[in-house]
């Protein structure tokens, strides 16, 4: 069993209106000094069996084609745990 985590964030130059709304709410609710909030997505993918080379490659491809849109988003992919 392997678990892979993919984090997807808007690129720094892309306006994040949702993050901005959250920032306003945090400030309204008493948190001082909120300089910026960016909202992203986290995917936790559990895979049966071992993450071999082939599946790792497919996963990387799909992270770029499906999970993230590289026009506006960056992503990072990491293998969190592997159990035989």
């Amino acid at each position, binding site marked *: 069993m392997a678990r892979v985590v993919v984090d997807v964030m808007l690129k720094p130059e*892309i*306006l994040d*209106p*949702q993050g901005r*709304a959250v920032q306003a709410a945090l400030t309204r609710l008493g948190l001082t000094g909120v300089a910026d909030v960016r909202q992203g997505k986290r995917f936790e993918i559990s895979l049966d069996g071992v993450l071999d080379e082939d599946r790792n490659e497919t996963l990387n491809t799909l992270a770029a084609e*499906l*999970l993230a*849109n590289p*026009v*506006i988003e960056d992503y990072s992919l990491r293998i969190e745990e592997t159990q035989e």
Partner: protein
Amino acid sequence: MSPRVGVVTFPGSLDDSDTLRAVMAAGAEPVSLWHGDPSIGDVAAVVVPGGFSYGDYLRCGAIARFAPIMSAVVAGARDGLPVLGICNGFQILCESGLLPGVLTRNESLHYVCKDQSLAVGNTDSAWTRGYTADQVIVLPVKHGEGRYVADEHTLDMLAAEGRVAFTYRNTNPNGSFRDIAGITNEAGNVLGLMPHPEHAIETLVGTPGADGLTIFESAVSSLVASV
């Protein structure tokens, strides 16, 4: 014989019925296509309508672009098939790579639903040739994620090549870059736009008039001419 124009229905499509009707009003034979179909059959043009395909999960259009029928639509578009994407259809065409850029959450975070004044910026593409240069038209907009975003290089290229088909006038409802409401591909056979031409095809009902009918008539008349 009138040309056959396909309209794709995805799970969550909303405006497919109105679009089929608009195709008929423009003098073509409307053909319903299903997202799970592997082919588009013998249609001479395809419209990807508005709605919330696959619930807009992940990103608008991100899952729909991988629907079986989209391979045929993309292949056809690359061979010159006229393809129109309206609202969610525009989002799907961007995600599929037929059009550059992407549609993001409205700057205001509000869903907008109103009649919108537009300037026509392109009158020689498959779907816009019925308009006159700099014509002002009114179409309804209704979307929460219609803010067109692309890098500066792409925006400059679109402007230089005359591919900005429509821009918002007076007010920009979503904060789109350079007031862009619709763009075409390089060859001009693919158009994507956020406003809804299919909701403005007759003066009797609905909204602002019949300015939207010209989009459908533009494509249909050239299909008739080529038969």
